[in-house]
């Protein structure tokens, strides 16, 4: 089963059809996605600004990690759930959407960055916890901030169909990146 088969199968499940056809459900899930964006992205920005040393330098980083980050993580969980439901409502189009693919790749990179911070940089925080953050910490915060902003950009652009598979002709590179094989008549 190729990924394309999987998403095609997904789009025929009852869940997907129901979500797709219910205007209210889709709008409500979208709203939840935006609300949790406020909670997750908003608080993540604050953590990143602290790591960069651009705000509240006197508050130890560990306090941000212990007391602010859990709220961000909670927001993230609801974001992932609502985001998954949004994909479930339009599986095939999401899978073949250029910005959706970009967003997923950036999410993996953001996850890697968070992993490196947590397991490689943060354990050595004793030396800089309540001080000006060293370069590695500022880099982790800056990379995180840039990545999350880029993820929000990609997320917003998923709604637009400029590069959609059913809009041909597209540049060969676009069709390659969206694994789109247009029917011969569409060339």
């Amino acid at each position: 089963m190729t990924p394309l088969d999987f998403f095609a199968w997904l789009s025929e499940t009852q869940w997907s059809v129901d979500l797709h056809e219910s205007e209210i459900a889709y709008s409500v899930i979208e709203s939840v996605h935006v609300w949790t964006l406020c909670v997750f992205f908003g608080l993540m920005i604050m953590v990143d600004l602290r790591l960069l040393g651009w705000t509240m330098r006197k508050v130890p980083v560990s306090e941000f990690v212990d007391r602010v980050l859990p709220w961000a993580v909670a927001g993230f969980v609801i974001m992932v759930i609502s985001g998954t439901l949004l994909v479930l409502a339009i599986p095939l189009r999401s899978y073949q959407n250029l910005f959706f693919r970009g967003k997923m790749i950036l999410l993996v990179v953001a996850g890697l960055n968070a992993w490196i911070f947590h397991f490689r940089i943060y354990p050595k925080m004793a030396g800089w916890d309540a001080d000006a953050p060293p370069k590695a910490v500022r880099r982790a915060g800056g990379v995180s901030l840039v990545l999350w902003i880029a993820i929000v950009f990609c997320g917003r652009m998923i709604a637009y169909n400029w590069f959609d598979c059913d809009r041909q002709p597209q540049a060969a590179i676009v069709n390659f990146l969206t694994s789109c094989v247009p029917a011969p008549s569409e060339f």
Partner: protein
Amino acid sequence: MLPFFQWCYGTWIGETIRESTWLFPLIEAFHLVGLGFTAGTVLMVDLRLLGVGLSRQSAAQLWAAVKPWFLGSVTLMFVTGILLFMSEAIKCYYSFAFWIKMASLLLALVFAFTVRRHVVQTGPASGAWQQGRLTAVASLVLWFGVAWGGRWIGFS
């Protein structure tokens, strides 16, 4: 008020954004990034008022620290929001969500600089208190109303 909305819609700014493929989505994306910063700064203080988040600092200290980011991001939201509005002012005029958003935005801003500021500045150095909790709930409801209205302008 309709003539004013029609005038906004007809300006070259509104027209340029409307006729471009990329401008509206791009401005929208900046609007969302502004939303993130605004929400983050609002939440830092409101969580503190609820007695969670960074509770070793007073709400006044937190508000002072995040205020430049709050004002900067609200400015970004206003600039991008006005641009978005100008490109679809007539649609906004007839959109229920738009008026809900404007009303909650006005209330949220007035509340932030009157009641909330007073409560934040007179609150205790540590711990939560009843007035603080109520203020946080009101603030969160108002700001979430703004975000909700904003999202629903797009659905109409």
